[in-house]
C-alpha cells in the first residue's frame, strides 16, 4: 500500500479525445467548400429568376437586377446619376449603425442585469413578470406615435424603437438562462465558499451566457429589422430613410438597393456575433457552431 500511495496513475490515453488527423481535416475542408457553394449558389439562382421574371412580364414597376446593380454602384461610388444619393452609402450605413447599436447596446445593458435579477430573485419575478408579458405582445410599430411624442423627430425616437424590439428577446432569454442553471452548480459553489454578489458574478452570469448569447443574436436581428420603422420617424439619413425616400420618389431601384444593404449589414454583423459567441462559449459543446 505504501508504495502505491506515492503516485497516482495518469489519466488513460484513450480517455483523451484525439486531435483531428490530416485526412479528416481535408474532408472537413471539402465539406466547408460545398456548404459555401450551396449557400452562395441559391441566392444567385434567385437573382436569375428575378431577372427572367422582370424580362418576361415586361413590368416597369419592379427594377431588374441590372438596374439595381447600377443603382448600387452609384449609391456606393457615384458618377452615374449624380443626385442626392450618389456616393452616400457610408454615411447612411454609419447613421443606421449608430441607431441599431445604440438601441441594441442599451437593450443589452438593461436587459441582461435585469434578467439576471428577475431570474434569481423571486420577489422581482412576481413584481415584474406580469407587466413584462403584458407589454411584450405590443408591436413595436404601435409605439411609433408615442415615441415621436416622447423623443421628438430625430434619431432618439429611432433608437428607442430599436431598443424596444431588442429588449424583450435579451431579457427573456437571460431569465430563461438563469432559471435553467443546474441547481447543483449553486450548491457546489456554496459549498466552496461562494455567496452573495460573488455568486452572481461567478456562477449565475457565466452559467447563463449560452442563453444570453441566444437572446443577443435574436435581438440583433430584430434591431436591424426595426431600423426601417425607426427611421420612419423623420430622420434625413440612414438606410431606413433611404428606403422611405425611394418609396415617395417611386424609385424602386433605390428601395431594393437599401433593402440589400440592410441585409448585407445584418448578415455581416450577425457573423461577427457568432464568432464572438463561439469564442466566449468555447466551453459549451452545444454552442460551438
Amino acid at each position: 500500500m505504501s508504495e502505491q500511495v506515492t503516485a497516482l496513475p495518469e489519466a488513460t490515453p484513450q480517455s483523451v479525445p484525439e486531435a483531428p488527423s490530416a485526412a479528416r481535416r481535408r474532408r472537413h475542408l471539402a465539406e466547408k467548400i460545398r456548404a459555401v457553394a450551396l449557400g452562395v449558389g441559391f441566392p444567385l439562382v434567385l437573382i436569375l429568376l428575378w431577372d427572367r421574371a422582370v424580362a418576361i412580364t415586361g413590368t416597369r414597376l419592379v427594377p431588374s437586377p441590372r438596374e439595381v446593380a447600377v443603382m448600387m454602384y452609384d449609391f456606393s461610388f457615384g458618377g452615374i446619376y449624380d443626385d442626392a444619393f450618389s456616393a452616400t452609402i457610408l454615411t447612411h450605413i454609419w447613421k443606421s449603425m449608430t441607431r441599431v447599436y445604440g438601441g441594441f447596446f442599451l437593450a443589452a445593458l438593461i436587459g441582461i442585469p435585469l434578467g439576471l435579477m428577475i431570474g434569481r430573485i423571486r420577489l422581482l419575478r412576481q413584481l415584474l413578470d406580469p407587466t413584462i408579458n403584458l407589454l411584450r405582445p405590443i408591436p413595436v410599430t404601435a409605439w411609433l406615435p408615442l415615441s415621436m411624442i416622447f423623443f421628438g423627430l430625430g434619431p432618439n425616437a429611432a433608437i428607442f424603437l430599436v431598443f424596444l424590439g431588442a429588449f424583450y428577446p435579451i431579457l427573456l432569454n437571460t431569465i430563461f438562462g438563469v432559471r435553467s442553471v443546474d441547481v447543483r452548480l449553486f450548491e457546489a459553489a456554496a459549498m466552496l465558499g461562494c455567496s452573495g454578489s460573488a455568486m452572481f458574478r461567478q456562477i449565475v452570469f457565466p452559467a447563463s451566457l449560452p442563453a444570453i448569447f441566444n437572446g443577443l443574436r435574436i435581438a440583433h436581428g430584430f434591431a436591424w429589422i426595426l431600423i426601417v420603422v425607426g427611421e420612419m420617424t423623420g430622420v434625413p439619413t440612414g438606410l431606413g430613410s433611404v428606403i422611405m425616400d425611394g418609396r415617395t420618389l417611386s424609385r424602386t431601384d433605390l428601395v431594393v438597393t437599401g433593402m440589400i444593404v440592410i441585409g448585407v449589414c445584418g448578415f455581416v454583423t450577425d457573423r461577427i456575433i457568432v464568432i464572438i459567441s463561439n469564442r466566449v462559449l468555447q466551453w459549451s459543446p452545444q454552442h460551438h457552431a
Partner: protein
Amino acid sequence: MRNADRPHVVIRGVSKRFQVGDGEVEALARIDATIERGAFVCLIGASGCGKSTLLRVVAGFEEPTTGEVLVEGKPVTAPGSDRGMVFQDYALFPWMTVRQNIGFGPRQRQLPRKEVEDIADEFVKLVGLERAANRYPSQLSGGMKQRVAIARVLANNANILLMDEPFGALDALTREQLQRELLQIWARTRVTILFVTHSVEEAALLGDRVLVMSAGPGRIESDIKIDLPRPREVSSPEFNAVRRELAQRLTSHMAPARALETVT
C-alpha cells in the same frame, strides 16, 4: 484546534420530512450516528431509503426537521468548505478549465493569485490530470470529471468528503480505477469520508464501516465494521464473507417493504 478524541461528525436525532403536494413524506426517521476522524464510512441501502438526504443534511444543503449534525462539535447550519460534496453528476463549472475548477475554492478565499495557482497545480497533480489541466469539463471523460470534482473539494481544505454515489455513472473499469485512487488519496490525506452507494461490493471494498439503511422512513438498521486488511482482495474468501453478510442485511431489511408493496 484539532481534537483527536472528539468524533468528527455526530448525527443526533436527525429526521427529515418533505412537503409533497398536500401531504408529507418522511424521508428520515431519527438517525443517530457518530463518525470518527479519518474513517471511511459507507452508507448503503435501496433507492429511496434516504441515504442521499442524510448526506445532504450533513453537507448543509437540507435542514433537518428535527435533530442536528455536529461537525467538530459545532452544529451545521449551512454548506461550508470543511465538508466537500462530490456529486454523482460531477457538478463541475462547465465554463472553467480543470485548473480553474480546482482553484475555485481557494479563489473564494481571496488568496493571492500565485498561491491559488500553486494549490490548483498541486491538486491537479494529486489526481493525475496534468495533461488535461487546461481542458473544459465537456472535453473530459466521466472518470476524469470525477477526479476533478474530488480535487476541487480537497483543494479547498475539506477534511470531510461527502460522496453521493460518485462512481455510479462510470463504466466498470473506470470505477475500479477511481476506487483505487480514492483509497490512495484517503490514505495520503487522511480525510473523513462518508460515501453513499447502492453497491454491496463497493461498500465492502472501500469502507471501514458500513451503515446499512432501510426505507420507509429511512433509518440505520445495521452498523457493520469491516476489519479486512487493505488493499482488499475481492476474490478472497474473507471478502466474500463480508459481501455476503452485507447483502443479507440489505435484503433482509428490504424484504418486508417489498412484501408490503405487492400487497397494496
